[in-house]
C-alpha cells in the first residue's frame, strides 16, 4: 500500500451513538489515500464493537486503544504521534466530513505553501443530522458558519468564533512537533482546541481560511462551567 497523503485523527470516548457515521464519512472521501486513526480513550460502551467492525472492513482504519480514560488532549496527542502522513485532519467522534474534505485540503496546502494551519466553513447539524438554519448578520437564512479571515484579537476575546469548528482544522505535522494539546483542566473543560490554536499562533505558525464547507459539526447543547473556562482563558492570555 502506498503511504497515506493525509491522516484523520479521531479521539473517541463513549461515542457509540455517532462514531460509525463519522468513520463512514472518512471512508467515503473522494481521495482514497488516507489513514484513519481512532483513539479509543478507554470507552466503556459499544465503541470497541464498532471499531472492530471497521478494522475488519477497511485496512485504512487504525485503532489505538487506551486502557483508561485520560482525556481528549492525551488521546489526540497519541493519535497524531502515530500518524504517518504530513497532513493531520482533526475530527471529533460525532462530526461528519463532507466527501471532498481531504481533496480540497491537500489542494489548499499545495497552493499556499506558507500556511501551516487551515480552517474552513462548516455546517451545524443537530442530533439527528439535520442542518441547523440560523440568521446571519445581514438577516439572511443560512446554514453555513463562515470561516472569517484570521484575527488574533478575536481569538483572544472569545472561544473559536473565527474558527467555526475545531473539526474543520487541518495542519502540517511539523506544527505538532512544536505544539502539543494541553491536558488537565484544558481537556476536562473542552477548551484544549482553543489553547492549541493560541499556542500555534504564539509559536509563529500561520493560519489560513478556506471558504468552503468541509465538515458538519454536531451541535449538542452541553452545560459548561463558564466561570472556570474564563479563569483558564485569563491565565493563558496573561
Amino acid at each position, binding site marked *: 500500500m502506498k503511504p497515506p497523503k493525509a491522516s484523520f485523527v479521531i479521539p473517541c470516548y463513549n461515542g*457509540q*451513538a*455517532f*462514531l*460509525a*457515521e463519522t468513520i*463512514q464519512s472518512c471512508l467515503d472521501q473522494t481521495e482514497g489515500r488516507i489513514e484513519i486513526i481512532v483513539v479509543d480513550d478507554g470507552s466503556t*460502551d*459499544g465503541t470497541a*464493537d*464498532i471499531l*472492530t*467492525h*471497521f478494522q475488519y*472492513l477497511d485496512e485504512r482504519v487504525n485503532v489505538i486503544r487506551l486502557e483508561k480514560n485520560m482525556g481528549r488532549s492525551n488521546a489526540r496527542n497519541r493519535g497524531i504521534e502515530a500518524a504517518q502522513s504530513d497532513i493531520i485532519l482533526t475530527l471529533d467522534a460525532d462530526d461528519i466530513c463532507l466527501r471532498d474534505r481531504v481533496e480540497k485540503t491537500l489542494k489548499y496546502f499545495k497552493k499556499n505553501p506558507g500556511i501551516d494551519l487551515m480552517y474552513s466553513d462548516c455546517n451545524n447539524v443537530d*442530533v*439527528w*443530522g*439535520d442542518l441547523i438554519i440560523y440568521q446571519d448578520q445581514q438577516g439572511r437564512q443560512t446554514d453555513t458558519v463562515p470561516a472569517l479571515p484570521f484575527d488574533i484579537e478575536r481569538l483572544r476575546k472569545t472561544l473559536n468564533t473565527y474558527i467555526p469548528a475545531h473539526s474543520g482544522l487541518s495542519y502540517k505535522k511539523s506544527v505538532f512537533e512544536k505544539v502539543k494539546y494541553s491536558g488537565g483542566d484544558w481537556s476536562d473543560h473542552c477548551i484544549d482546541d482553543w489553547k492549541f490554536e493560541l499556542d500555534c499562533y504564539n509559536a509563529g505558525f500561520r493560519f489560513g481560511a478556506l471558504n468552503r464547507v468541509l465538515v458538519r459539526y454536531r451541535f*449538542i447543547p452541553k452545560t459548561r462551567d463558564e466561570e472556570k473556562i474564563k479563569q483558564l482563558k485569563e491565565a493563558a492570555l496573561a
Partner: protein
Amino acid sequence: MKFSFIIPVYKKAPETFRNCLKSLFNMSHKDMEVICVFDGPDPVLEPIADEFPITKKVVIEHGGACKARNEGAKFATGDFLSFWDADCFAEPEMSAMWEMTLKDNLDCDFCYSGYAWADPNMKGFESEPFDPFTLEHYNYIASMFPLAKDKFPGWDESLTGMQDWDYWRRVVRAGSKGAFIPGFGFVTEVPGADSISGSKSESEHFDKTKARIEAVRKKLGDPERDVVVHGLTYKRDTGFAAKVLNADFIWNPFWLVKPYKLSLMMGFHPQSLDISRKMLDRTGKDTKRAIYWMGMDAEAFYTAPYWQVKTVLKDFDDKINFHFCNEKRTYDILTDMGIFPEIVPFPYDAEKEGIKFPDKFKVLVLTDDVYEKVIHGVIKAMPEVEFTRVVPDTYYNMMDYTVSLQYTKNPRLDNNSRNFLIKGRYLISNVDVPHSGYLPIGDDPVKFKNDIINRIRELKTENRPNMEARNFYLAEASPENFRAKILSILDREAVA
C-alpha cells in the same frame, strides 16, 4: 411432464374458442395434449378445433360439463389432467410454471394460482395459500389446475353447480396436497347471465348459490355448526379464529346461506362497509352478532372525520350486539368513540412449531415518519448489526429475527408482535405493555439513542430466548381463553 388439457365445449362464441386453443398451443412448454369434448354435436365449433393439432376430438350426447370432462379423462395419457374451459386463455408461461412448481413440491399432487378476468376493470382473483381447513368452507381453486392422473376422483355429474369445489374437496380429503403459485395463471371471460356461474340478479344469484352450497355440503356430510366467523380484510386471522372456535368460516357474503346462533365479524374496515353490511344483513334474525375489532380498523375509524364515524356507527348500532378487541390501545380508541368492547387477546397460532431461535442475530425495524430519524440514527450507529427495514410490499419472515424494533405513532402490540414474543423473541418499542421492551423517547435524544444501542448490544451478547415474555403471553393469549370468552355470549342477552 405431460399435461392433458380436457376441454368441454358447449355453445361458445367461435372467436373465444379459437383464442382459447391458440393460447394453449402458444405456451412455451410443449409436452402436452388437448382433448376437446363436444357436449352435443356442434357444426360451428368442431371445424375450429380441426384448425389446431389437437390430440383427440370427442362428441358426446349433451349431458353437462361434468359428463364431458369424465368422458375426456378416459382418453387422457398425460401425467397431469387439467380440465380447461373454452373461455379461458392461458398465459404463455403457465404450464412451464406448473411444471416448475410441481417438480419443486414433490409431495404435492396439484398446483394452483389465481386468475385474471378478461374485463380489465375487474380485479383478478388472487386465490390463497393451500389450507385444507379453509377449502372445507369455500372454494379458492378453479377447475383448470393440473391434478396428478392417478389421483383423479372423477367429476360428480349429479351436481348443478360448485362441481369444482366438490371436486377439489374430494381430492384433498383423499390426502392430496396442493402447491400455491402467487399471481395469475390465465385470463377468463366474465360469466354471462345465462351461464352456469352467472345470474340475472343478486337475489337470484344468492338463491342459486345457496342451493348449490347446500347440495355439496349435504353430499360431503359437513356438520351443522352454530357459529360463523366472517372477515373481509383479515383472511388469515379470520381463518384461524374459525379454527379455534370450530366455526364455519366465510368471506364472501353469498356463501352465508344459513342462520347461525352466533356470527363473529373479524375486523370492520371503513373501506368494506358495504360488504360488512351485507354480511350482517344475511345473518338470521335471532343471530347474536359480535364484532372483533382489529387495531388497524379502529385506527382508521379514529382518524376518519367525526360525522363519518357517527353515521356509520349509528347505522350499525342495531346490527351489532357485542364488541371485542385485541389489546389496550384499540380499547382506548373505541372507548373514546363511545364503544365499550371487551378485551379478549387474539389466540396465538405460533405455538405448534415451538421455539426455533435464529442462529444469526438480526433486527427487524418497523417505524413510521414520526420516528424515522431516531431509528435511522440507531441503524447508522450500529454497522456491525444486521438490520432489516420493513418496507411495504416486501416479503419477510418475522421469525428469522431475534429483535424487533418497533416505533410508531400509534403504539400497539399487534398479533404478529405477540406471536413474536411467544416465540421467545424480544421487542424494543414504545408500546407500554408487559415484556414489550418499553423504551420511550425522553427529553434527551442522545441518551435515548444510547439506551436503544445498549439494549440491542446486550441482547446480541446474551442471544437466548425470552422465556418470561413467552410464558406471559402463552397464558394470556391462549386459544382456550379466546374460545371460552367468545362462546360465552351464546348464553348472554344481547345488549343492543
